[in-house]
């Protein structure tokens, strides 16, 4: 299974090679005793975590807005009636309980659509961006697979897109994993060279969840439209934070997540263009709700919450944007002023300001995270934060192993305060300095030794 497209500088690699690297942990099948050992270890780690939780004196401050965001009180306020008195099934046709719930979800649909300048009929509610991505990628890939057997994505996508691609691959489709440049952005020329008449779908995320870089969505959309390829974008990290217009940007499918925009968890939406119509095979079948695309009773309170979150995001857009940019600048300036050898991962201009991924050279990321226990941070995405492996996103942008190992993601959101940022700067700087003083590598750098020239002996 090795496909190469003619006249292309980009290698189209089958999943067995790329994903073998990306999914080392998932694809290996451990033998029974190893499995037991693994389970035991997991249990121990869990117990340790819970014990630590009991010992906690203060709640840490929250700086992980890419993992999830606290719910806006205004959102909860709109949801609560639907969790108490207004409990009707929105699909009940025969009584007032159903009607009032139906009205609520249709109002919410309108609010979601308005935020991305779509028609309400083009919005389908799902359980979250993961489900939206699954429906978009697998659905479109499968529907058109008789005539078009090729799909495109990038190496820095979220796991749920990459995994869906892997499923398509096992069903006989060709998948191209576009590499990214060292700034995290894709090369449009490379994309153009891999778009063929055989291609049915191109899935590229708007803002990366780990490094916050912002892909040139309008240009990609234009390119895909010209080549008659459906363009799907995972906008979980960017809806409500960046201006999005699905018509102007030529987006055909777009995934939205509720809990990244101060809404409830367990709800998301998928935008599916009607003109030109995008057709797809549903994954979940049943009662035929949501235009047969996503069967299952629509959860009224969560949908109302998503609608409210979208409405507030639209109202507060300018204020949030200004505030987040200001705090991000404060954080970056504050740290880099007092700390040398700090690298901002990803393109410095084309990015969402609220996601600041910094690498502290000569400091081990894990030890820094352990030291910064009173600040809720992560080294990358929450989905992969259990493993000690450096993130595949950082590896894809060509970061050296040591840089990838020393990265920390700071997530700034609507409810982040100046005091929190200042506290984070102070703690980060002091711990980085302390850890570096303990490091022999740092000592060598201070003496002017270039670490790259050293030949380490093999153990």
């Amino acid at each position: 299974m090795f496909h190469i497209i003619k006249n292309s500088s980009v290698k189209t690699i089958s999943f067995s090679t790329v994903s073998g690297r990306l999914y080392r942990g998932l694809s290996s099948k451990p033998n029974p005793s190893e499995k037991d050992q693994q389970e035991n270890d997991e249990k121990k780690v869990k117990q340790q975590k819970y014990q630590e939780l009991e010992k906690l004196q203060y709640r840490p401050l929250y700086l992980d807005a890419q993992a999830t965001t606290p719910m806006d009180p205004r959102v909860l306020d709109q949801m609560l009636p639907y969790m108490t008195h207004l409990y009707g099934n929105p699909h009940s046709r025969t009584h007032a309980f159903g009607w009032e719930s139906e009205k609520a979800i249709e109002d919410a649909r309108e609010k979601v659509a308005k935020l991305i300048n779509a028609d309400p009929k083009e919005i389908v509610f799902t359980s979250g961006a993961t489900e939206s991505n699954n429906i978009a990628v697998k659905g479109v890939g499968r529907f058109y697979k008789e005539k078009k057997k090729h799909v495109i994505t990038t190496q820095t996508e979220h796991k749920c897109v990459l995994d869906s691609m892997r499923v398509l691959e096992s069903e006989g489709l060709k998948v191209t994993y576009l590499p990214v440049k060292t700034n995290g952005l894709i090369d449009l020329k490379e994309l153009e060279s891999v778009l063929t008449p055989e291609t049915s779908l191109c899935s590229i995320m708007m803002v990366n969840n780990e490094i916050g870089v912002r892909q040139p969505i309008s240009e990609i959309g234009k390119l895909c439209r010209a080549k008659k390829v459906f363009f799907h974008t995972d906008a979980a990290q960017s809806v409500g934070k960046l201006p999005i217009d699905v018509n102007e940007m030529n987006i055909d499918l777009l995934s939205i997540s509720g809990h990244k925009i101060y809404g409830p968890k367990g709800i998301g939406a998928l935008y599916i263009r009607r003109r030109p119509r995008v057709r797809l095979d549903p994954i979940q079948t049943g009662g035929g709700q949501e235009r047969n695309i996503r069967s299952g009773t629509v959860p009224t309170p969560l949908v109302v919450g998503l609608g409210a979150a979208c409405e507030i995001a639209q109202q507060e857009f300018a204020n949030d944007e200004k505030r987040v940019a200001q705090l991000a600048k404060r954080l970056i300036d504050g740290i880099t002023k007092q700390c040398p050898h700090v690298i901002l991962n990803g393109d410095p201009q084309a990015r969402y300001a609220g996601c600041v991924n910094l690498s502290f050279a000569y400091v081990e990321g894990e030890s820094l995270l352990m030291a910064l226990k009173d600040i809720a941070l992560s080294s990358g995405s929450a989905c992969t934060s259990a493993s000690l492996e450096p993130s595949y996103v950082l590896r894809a942008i060509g970061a050296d192993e040591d840089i990838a190992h020393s990265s920390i993601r700071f997530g700034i959101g609507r409810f982040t305060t100046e005091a929190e940022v200042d506290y984070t700067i102070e703690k980060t700087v002091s711990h980085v300095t302390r850890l570096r003083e303990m490091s022999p590598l740092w000592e060598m750098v201070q003496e002017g030794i270039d670490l790259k020239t050293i030949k380490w002996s093999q153990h």
Partner: protein
Amino acid sequence: MNSAKQPAIILYRQLLRECHKFSLYNYRDYFLRRVREEFHQNRNVKDSSKTAELLKRGQENLEIIRRQVIIGNLYTPHQRSICDNHEHSFIASR
């Protein structure tokens, strides 16, 4: 102080007083800041229909904040936030 401004000032004070009651400091900080920004931004609005609309929106938000303060305070965790502690010691030292 003219009489036209009176309702706005009353509402402003009510909003600030209520925002102070949020037990989660992130919410407290955010809503205090937003209330101040919003009133500052609209302080020169003269059009009476516009002021009526703004006052109505403010009143609605006051109701929301009142309800949410009550709900939030029902489920306050045992530990205080590290930043809350920081803030208090900062205020105490002044």
